[in-house]
């Protein structure tokens, strides 16, 4: 049977073997914890604690008035050592709260399970989700409460749980589905109470047969006919919102529409899991699961780690480097960002730490486009990368917009397919951000 998928896309090597059978291990930090104030999409937080304050697990360190924003909570108990600029995975120095861990893990008493949560008013869930600082753990870090509050005129028909994990190397979502399927399902059921007309769909690529089996048996065990598991063909970037909607609902996705416009809300597995933890167990978003892997890491692992932990500690926990890495990436190889240093805290968006050796990370020099059209075939958005690229280089922003350049989702499929090694995705990011900057400037004037 042909499994559902989307148009376009590529098939990069999966390279998931190193950690696919590794149980999630818990790691407790040794050193200080660093909490960047900008961890979610939208407005950055302002610190609400002072140097010298004692903080508890789950206590707010930073918050913002803005709707599109999520508070930053402490993952340990201890003293606020400093509020200063620290290097983050964005590659720049950002405002961070630094907490000295006292090792007691004393929890803020306000974090308890929601009273009678299966029957509680769903509005209470939303409040919880906001207070718990939950964001999309898939990597985009969009505040979940915003996603769950679509405009009232939109009818949500599908609540899609994203278990695709199409990034090579990374296994954290896969492991979570294998180890705690009941919590993911419970989270999904709680969210379905918010949208009575929606059905729950769990989309998983069929390179994770174990996960599909586990989730399916869990669904049938609980006998819920509103929830189904949909196995999908393996293709990158299936985990991207638009592609997943196309694959699951089999409706062609209009390029500029938002998921809610086509009746969908998409949540990552870990996000749903975290929602359940916040509501049913009183556990705010202070930890995440990450895959530490790559050919340069001695002992790749899946780790349940407290946010704010230094990446260096995690690499040491995995036995350090077996070989000098030439490139360390936060996230996966396709959409991840390369790091300048490993003395960087784990944040909500860190899905993995990937250390590559010289033999599997190389960049050949760029040459002229040979008009092979592979980038056209790879682009899931149906764009024409080899046409858009020179438009950016010639700075013809108008033509770039007219040719649909603003719809690029920066998935990297075109750059991956290009035999001439053209810096396609980079040029589109450049074009998009320059146009956005021009629009901002025009708005100010």
């Amino acid at each position, binding site marked *: 049977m042909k499994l559902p998928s989307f148009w376009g896309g590529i098939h990069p090597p999966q390279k998931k073997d190193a950690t696919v059978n590794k149980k999630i291990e818990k790691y407790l930090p040794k050193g200080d914890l660093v909490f960047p104030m900008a961890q979610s999409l939208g407005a950055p937080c302002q610190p609400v604690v002072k140097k010298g304050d004692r903080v508890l697990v789950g206590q707010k360190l930073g918050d913002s008035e803005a709707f599109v924003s999520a508070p930053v909570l402490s993952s340990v108990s201890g003293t606020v050592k400093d509020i200063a600029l620290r290097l983050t995975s*964005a*590659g*720049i120095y950002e405002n961070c709260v630094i907490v000295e861990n006292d090792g007691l893990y004393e929890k803020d008493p306000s974090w308890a399970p929601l009273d009678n949560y299966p029957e509680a008013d769903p509005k209470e869930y939303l409040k919880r989700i906001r207070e718990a600082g939950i964001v999309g753990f898939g990597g985009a870090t969009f505040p979940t409460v915003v996603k769950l509050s679509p405009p009232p005129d939109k009818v949500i028909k599908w609540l899609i749980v994203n278990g695709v994990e199409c990034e090579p190397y990374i296994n954290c979502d896969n492991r979570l589905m294998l180890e705690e399927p009941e919590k993911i399902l419970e989270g999904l059921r709680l969210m379905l109470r918010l949208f009575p007309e929606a059905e729950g769909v769990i989309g998983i690529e069929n390179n994770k047969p174990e996960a599909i089996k586990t989730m399916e048996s869990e669904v049938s065990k609980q006998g819920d006919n509103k929830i189904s598991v949909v196995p999908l063909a393996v293709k990158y970037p299936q985990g991207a919102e638009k592609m997943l909607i196309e694959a699951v609902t089999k409706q062609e996705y209009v390029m500029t529409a938002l998921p809610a416009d086509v009746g969908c809300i998409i949540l990552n597995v870990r996000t749903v899991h975290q929602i359940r933890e916040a509501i049913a167990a009183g556990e705010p978003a202070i930890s995440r699961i990450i895959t530490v892997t790559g050919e340069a890491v001695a002992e790749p692992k899946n780790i349940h780690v407290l946010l704010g932990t230094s990446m260096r500690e995690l690499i040491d926990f995995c036995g350090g480097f077996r070989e000098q890495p030439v490139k360390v990436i936060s996230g996966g190889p396709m959409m991840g960002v390369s790091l300048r240093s490993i003395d960087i805290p784990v944040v909500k968006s860190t899905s993995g730490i990937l250390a590559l050796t010289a033999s599997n990370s190389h960049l050949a020099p760029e040459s002229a486009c040979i008009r092979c059209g592979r980038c056209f075939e790879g682009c899931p958005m149906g764009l024409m990368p080899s046409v858009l690229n020179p438009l950016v280089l010639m700075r013809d922003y108008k033509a770039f917009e007219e040719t649909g350049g603003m719809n690029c989702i920066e998935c990297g499929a075109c750059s991956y397919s290009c035999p001439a090694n053209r*810096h396609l995705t*980079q040029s589109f*990011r*450049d074009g998009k*951000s320059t146009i956005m*900057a021009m629009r901002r400037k025009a708005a100010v004037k």
Partner: protein
Amino acid sequence: MTGMIYPAIIMGGLGLIFGALLAFASKKFHVETDPRQANIRAILPGANCGGCGYPGCDGFAEALANGTGKITGCAAGGSALADSIAAILGVQAEKDEPKIAFLKCKGSNDKTVKNCVYYGEYDCRAAAVVPGKGPTSCAFGCMGLGTCVSVCAFHAMTIKNGLAVVDAEKCVGCGACVENCPRDVLVLVPRKSKVNVSCNSPLKGPDVKRVCSVGCIGCTLCAKSCPVQAIEMKGALAVIDPAKCINCGICVTKCPTKSITDRRTNEEKAVSAVKETISV
């Protein structure tokens, strides 16, 4: 021979008919253009630099003729051009001060720490979208990849030792480089302003020191020493207000990191030194 006559008559006849039609159409559909537009266009420099904000010199001429353009809008032509345009339009030119581009950064390759080896597109705007916002570890300084060089229609920009250098003779103050620099590290300053802070980093002293040896550390010595209070501290960055600054150069001597650039000529320095002794 007769075979030639008919085609000649037919072609000739057709030519006459179409000619008449065209003549009729050009009368009938005549669009009134402002004759001043052509006159103005003739005296514009024709560099099509876009600094005026219109699509090239033609667009600017049209805007001037219909009254929406600013007479001093063409920086390339300077005040002489503004006078001529004003004469054509029959109005008085309010004068804009002549300006020059200035780079608020001294962090050349040997003075700053690089954060990565950059392989991507050789353009500052493209480099600004990679993690870390570009190859320099200071996220506010000049990257030296030369976007300003490529957009300058007057060849006033060059890159030396990782920094953009403005050629004061060639720069007409059109602002194209300022508009296109992703780091916003170029500014237009009045030509007569000769003392400027060459740093764009609002970070505190230790954070600047970590990446650059010539950045403003926010010590406020310059602001305290300025006799006319022309220097304001914006966070930990000193900013000189050219409207107040008298180009005395006192702050230049006080700055411990040598972050303030003095572009006065020796004569100008001598003049302000004399003034200083008199006022003492």
